[in-house]
């Protein structure tokens, strides 16, 4: 589904990703862990097509297409979804209206018929079972005045409606208390399926207690330095990133921060 090879990327002239290689198959949940500054968020931003990230080397193939040549909206229509670490507040744009416009824009790009408001309403009711959002939030402006937890739940709700093939969760756990974290994780788990993959980017092991990954990768200085199953996350929790650093001198300086 997703094949990243030797990816190098820079931001504002600074090299951040330095040869990242990763393959994700349908149905798999991959966790990307690593200390601050390792390049975790850069990976999410490069994959979703945000401006200002320059890919200098390597390739990303998504569903057989060269992902890096696609516009952000084309990536979305192809089945990529980024749950933002900091969802953007958009005053004046109604949450439900926006979501319907987004879904229909994707469907149009894929050559599928658009949903009318009745069909969309039905879909929303169905998806509310997966990720509960209050009626009030549905009708407010996108993320405007939402609490941290409400914003993250709204991201997962959008994911439920848009039904991507690959969802990237960028530090979705940041700023959440334990109850909110559980709710978000429940939503994600309900969306797991044999043909949907997840890339869970996180600094802490905590989220992985609730979203159980098939693979855990440690990102350090722009490369994956260690891969394993979920027990790798537990080891990291126990020993800290210094444990990897001991085996990888490149990480040593960052681990002490």
């Amino acid at each position: 589904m997703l094949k990243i090879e030797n990816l190098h990327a820079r931001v504002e002239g600074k090299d951040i990703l330095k040869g990242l290689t990763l393959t994700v198959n349908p149905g798999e949940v991959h966790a990307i862990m690593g200390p601050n500054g390792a390049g975790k968020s850069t990976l999410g931003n490069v994959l979703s097509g945000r401006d200002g990230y320059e890919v200098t080397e390597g390739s990303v193939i998504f569903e057989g297409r060269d992902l890096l040549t696609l516009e952000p909206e084309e990536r979305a229509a192809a089945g990529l979804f980024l749950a933002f670490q900091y969802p953007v507040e958009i005053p004046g744009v109604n949450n439900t209206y926006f979501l319907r416009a987004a879904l229909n824009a994707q469907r149009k790009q894929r050559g599928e018929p658009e949903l009318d408001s009745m069909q969309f309403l039905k879909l929303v009711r169905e998806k509310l079972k997966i990720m509960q959002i209050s009626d009030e939030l549905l009708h407010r402006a996108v993320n405007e005045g939402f609490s941290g937890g409400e914003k993250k739940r709204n991201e997962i709700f959008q994911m439920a409606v848009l039904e991507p093939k690959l969802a990237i969760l960028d530090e979705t756990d940041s700023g959440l208390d334990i109850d909110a974290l559980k709710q978000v994780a429940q939503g994600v788990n309900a969306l797991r399926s044999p043909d949907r993959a997840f890339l869970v980017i996180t600094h802490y092991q905590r989220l992985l207690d609730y979203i159980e990954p098939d693979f855990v990768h440690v990102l350090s200085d722009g490369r994956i330095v260690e891969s394993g199953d979920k027990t790798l996350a537990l080891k990291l929790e126990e020993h800290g990133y210094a444990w990897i650093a001991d085996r990888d001198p490149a990480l040593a300086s960052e681990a002490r921060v």
Partner: protein
Amino acid sequence: MSPTPAPVPFIDGLRDIDSVRLAGSGHAWLDTARRENLEAFIAAGLPDTRAEAWKYTALRALGQRRFTHGDPGAPTRNVDPKELVLPGVDGPRLVFVNGAFRADLSRLEALPAGLTLQPLSMVLSKDPEPLRFALSRHYRETSDAFARLNAALAGDGVVLRVAPGTRVGKPVQLCFVGTPAEGDLAWHLRNVIELGEGAELDLVEHHVSNIAHKHLGTVVTDIVVHDGARLQHALLQNAAEESTLIRRGSLHLGAKAHAALHVLELGGALVRHDLHAELRGDEARLDTRGVFVLRGRQHVDTQLSIRHQALNTASESTWRGVADERAHGVFRGAIVVAQGADGSDANLSNKNLLLSGLAEIDTKPELEIYADEVKAAHGATIGQLDERALFYLRSRGLPYAEARALLTAAFCRSVFASLPNESLREHFSEALLAHLP
């Protein structure tokens, strides 16, 4: 070297007032007023950008064009009545095509009691005397060039009166239609509107064009809202892309009178809108809200002047400007709180959005306060679309143009939230979206 005034600026075949046939000719006071205004216009011509009021709007190119006065074919020009229909607006209607009244397109039967709605041409041919005060005005400044021209040459327009205490149930629609003629026309309309004490009126002003033309229209409107009366005034300007439209309004509010204005400017190549409002009675209240959305090489200049002249008056002004491509928008909002207008409350906000590096918006909020215990605030900003929001929308699948339109519409939306006619409000939003490139 002093600049030589233009010889009879841009009106073909115009020597003096006697060479023009206008409704009401033969009444000495009206002939005099027209003649003097025309002479003043010919003598001074158009203002240049050294005049403060025209600093950002150059009229040089306009002054070099030639226009024909009026349209002899106006009574029979083909206009599809469907183009005049606005959702939520189904009351009496007065329609003008190329500056001339069209009874066949108007809706004047069964007017509600207390409402007088007539074309100016008809009033002038019967008895112009009641309009003597309004129509014998002399404009002293060169910057009033178009008002002079209008005072000299307007033979038609709207005369609307609401009797004291009358609440007009359905919205009254005024349509100003431009349509192609044999050449480029100059036409002029003069509107006189009065709401008696305690009267209520919902007014919809619609400038519309069915086919491309390059006419020049001037519209001068005086509105008086007497004590305790209420006016809702919505204005949709969707004139032809290459047309020139100069509108000048005066609005006087009596004690406890309330006027709310919602303006959407979309059309025209060169558009100028002056509004001079005076809050003359205690506790008068004025809300003005407006948006211009410009593209191509459009130039739209809005000049708002509000004078608080009585106790505890309030004005709230919310204006937004959007300019794309090579368009140029101008906004000037001047609020004066006169001596003695204590307890007044004045707010002015003007926010602008530049969608292109070649677009330009000039904004100038001004506040002059000569009274005590006044609450006043004003602010203006010029910015661009939030890149983060744009990316967020695109990451969810919305194509760039759609995401941009959605954010632009959102930027303007708050302005029309207070428009009570829901269908019309919806139509304003759609018209705005449709105008975005």
